[in-house]
Each structure stands twice: as C-alpha cells, then as structure tokens.
C-alpha cells in the first residue's frame, strides 16, 4: 500500500475550510447552549413553579437520547411539519438542544456546590438575596463549575462530527466525501486523525491546566 502524500496535500485547502466549519458549528452551538443553560439553571436554582419540572424533563430527554437521532428528528421530521431547515440550521438547533441540557446540569451543580455557610455568611452582613447571588453565589459557582464547563465545551466540539450526517461540510463530512470520490481511505483518515489531535488535544491540555490552576490557585473557594 502506498501512501499518497501529494494527494493529502492537495486536500489541505478543503480541510482548512472544514476545520473552519467545525469551529463555527462548535463555537456557535456552545454560545447558544450557554444562553439556554443560564436561563434553565436559574429556573432550577430558584425552583420557578411549573417551569422547573419542564426544565428537568427537558434535561433528561436531551441527555438520554442520541444526538444523531435528535439531529434526524430536527432535519427530517420538522420539514414534514412545514418548517424548512438547512443542514447548518438543524446542526445548530440540535447541538443547542443537547448542549443546553448538559450545560444546565453543569451550572446547577456549580451553584449547589457553593457551601451553605457562604450564603449564611453573606446574609449575616445584611446582603439581600440579589446581592448574595451577584457577589457571592455566581462568582463562586463559576469558579467551581469552570472545569466541568470546559470539559463540556470540548465534548460539544467533538460531537460536531455527528452533524456530518446532514451534509454540513465539517471535517468528518469532508473526509467521507474524499473517500467516496477518490477511494483514498487511509490518507483521508490520517488527515482526519491529525486534525482531531490538532484541534482537541490543545483544548484538553488547556482544560487540565485550568483545573490545576483552580485547585491550587489563590482564587479557589
């Protein structure tokens, strides 16, 4: 078996574009997921009547169904209900649906990890509940949930490969395309693996660095 490096190089521009798409889908989905999660976590933390159960149900549903099936539902089932949607749109909606659920749990856990004593300590100097949230709970909860938050970000970024199933031209889709067109299976899988390592490994390392910083840093709670 010969390894066609010249061919590999010729695909580089296409793959660079694909990396762009992966990052675009991933980062956009992380952002929208965070918005969903902040709102949901607030509902859970304050136990907003009725809505609270709804959020719980959503979190369980989204975390216990495969992303691929969620994606197919959005991409194929929604149009039959009269909602037209692009592959990219379906990708973002689905990733947000799942990412929002995971991040909701991360944020909720962060808030609950703030020791009760910190709340009493804040109340004992006369802070209002709003001031307590702003000056004590949120800062500490963000520190406490940062490692899990970043881990979930990396997880979401990796999950973007699933959206290749609805023809979003990210790295896996591009790989499959080249394999189908030119039968250069090994070369293309090598490129894909290399790209994955290049994208995700630095992120994981950054993640581990952050965790260490937080555990030993002076800001820890």
């Amino acid at each position, binding site marked *: 078996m010969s390894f066609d490096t010249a061919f590999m190089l010729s695909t580089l521009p296409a793959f660079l574009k694909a990396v762009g798409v992966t990052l675009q889908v991933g980062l956009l989905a992380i952002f929208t997921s965070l918005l969903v999660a902040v709102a949901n976590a607030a509902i859970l933390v304050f136990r907003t009547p009725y809505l609270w159960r709804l959020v719980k149900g959503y979190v369980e549903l989204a975390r216990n169904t495969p992303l691929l099936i969620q994606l197919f539902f959005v991409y194929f089932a929604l149009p039959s209900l009269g909602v037209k949607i692009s592959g990219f749109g379906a990708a973002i909606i689905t990733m947000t649906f799942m990412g929002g659920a995971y991040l909701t749990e991360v944020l909720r856990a962060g808030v609950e990890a703030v*020791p009760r*004593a*910190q709340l*009493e*300590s*804040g*109340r*004992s*100097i*006369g*802070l*209002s509940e709003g*001031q307590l949230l702003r*000056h*004590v709970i949120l*800062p*500490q909860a963000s*520190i406490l949930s940062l490692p899990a938050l970043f881990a979930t970000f990396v997880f979401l970024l990796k999950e973007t490969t699933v959206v290749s199933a609805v023809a979003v031209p990210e790295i896996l889709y591009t790989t499959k395309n080249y394999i189908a067109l030119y039968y250069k299976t090994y070369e293309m899988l090598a490129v894909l693996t290399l790209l994955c390592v290049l994208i995700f490994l630095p992120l994981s390392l950054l993640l581990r660095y952050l965790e260490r910083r937080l555990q030993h840093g*002076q*800001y*820890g*709670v």
Partner: protein
Amino acid sequence: MSALIEFQGFNKFFGEQQVLEQIDLQVQAGEVVVILGPSGCGKSTLLRCLNGLEQAHSGSLRLDGKELLAPGTDWRQVRQRVGMVFQSYHLFGHMSVLDNLLLGPLKVQKRERGEAQAQAEALLARVGLLDKRDVFPRQLSGGQQQRIAIVRSLCMNPEVMLFDEVTAALDPEMVKEVLQVIQGLAREGMTLLIVTHEMAFARAVADRIVFMEAGRILEQNPPERFFTQPQSARAQQFLEKFSFVESLPKTLHKELS
C-alpha cells in the same frame, strides 16, 4: 433601663424536635454574656435566631424594645446592628481580605469607599493584620481568618456581636490571638453574646454566664458564682468535665489581659 435584647417565652422547633424551650433572657447594652452548655443544647440556634438565620416558632424577641418576631421585620436592618461570627470563619474565598471587609459597608450600607476603607484598615491594624489587606483568605491561617471575620462584622458598626464558638476550629496557639480581640471589644463596652468552650476565657470576660441544657436556660449567674457554686446539678456535672477549671483561670486571666 429596658434591655437591649430580650427573649421572652421563646420557642424554636426543628420539625417535631423542640430545640429552644421557653427561653427568657435579657441582655443590657454593654453587657458581655457567655452561653455555656453541652453539645446540642441549642446555643448556636439561640444566636442564629437573634440574627434571623433561623426562624422562631413562638414567643417574643425584642431588640431595643422592637419586636423582631412580628411580621415585616427587616432582618437585613437587624443584621447590620447584630453582627455574627461563625466557628469556621466563612470568609468569601473569591475575594481579597479588603473586598471581604468592604462588601457590607459598600453594598449594604452604601457608604463611601474612602471612608469605609479607612475604617477597615484601622480595624485591620488593630487586629495586627494590616499587611494582609490584599491577600486571599486561603493564604491565611485559621486564626488570621477568624480575626478578619471579626473585623468584617465590625466594619458594619454593629451594636451587638454574636460569637459562636469562634475558636473551636483553631489550633491551640491561635486561640489566644482571637480571644484577645474579643476581650478588647468587651473592654470597650460592646454588647457581646459569646458561645464558647474556653472556660477560662468565659470566666475572664463574662459579666454573666448563661447555662443551657436541652433547649432550656438552667441558670444565669455572674461568672465567679457560676464557676465556684453552680446552682444546678447539671451545671456541676458540666463543669466537672472541665476538670482543669479550678487551676487555670488565674494564669490565663493574666495572659489574656
């Protein structure tokens, strides 16, 4: 003169369990009251009720003549007048010492930064920790953190301070530095309610000892009388557990002064 703090027929339940039963306790302004009693007798709960961290069940609790158990009590207002220091300090870990001290004065009392900071620094200097102004709590020893926690309460200019076993979590060599700060406050005439297991300190600092057992106040007496002639059998048993009680006071009294 009417009392600054007045519990009357005060009851508190946790579920079915009654943890405070018919508490009658008056504290005059400037008085130093030390509450003693075996573990679980309700000492912490008593202090926490006074600070609104626990809700009373029935009875009466007045601060400066004003009924606190009436609906519509502004507990945030009360907490500015009644400071509380906890066993495990509970400083805000994500803030520098100075930010810990200024949070209340700036956000709750809306005071001017320059003035509040000048007070905070003066108080820090007084407890010997001005050089720790910009560090974070986790960089401090337990005794240092506890002194900062006391200063954090003092920065609110409270009339009363509640101390709940503030030396119980400390290594022995740090106990003294914290007790000295409290004794300083007592000398200045601040109203103090102190829960402690430091008998020698209790004897030295208290104007009155309140002995509790199983949610009730069994006796209230001046320290000399309580330590030498406890009225109730329970108090006698309690004191016998601290067998060193006879030998210690004189020396420690001197040391603390």
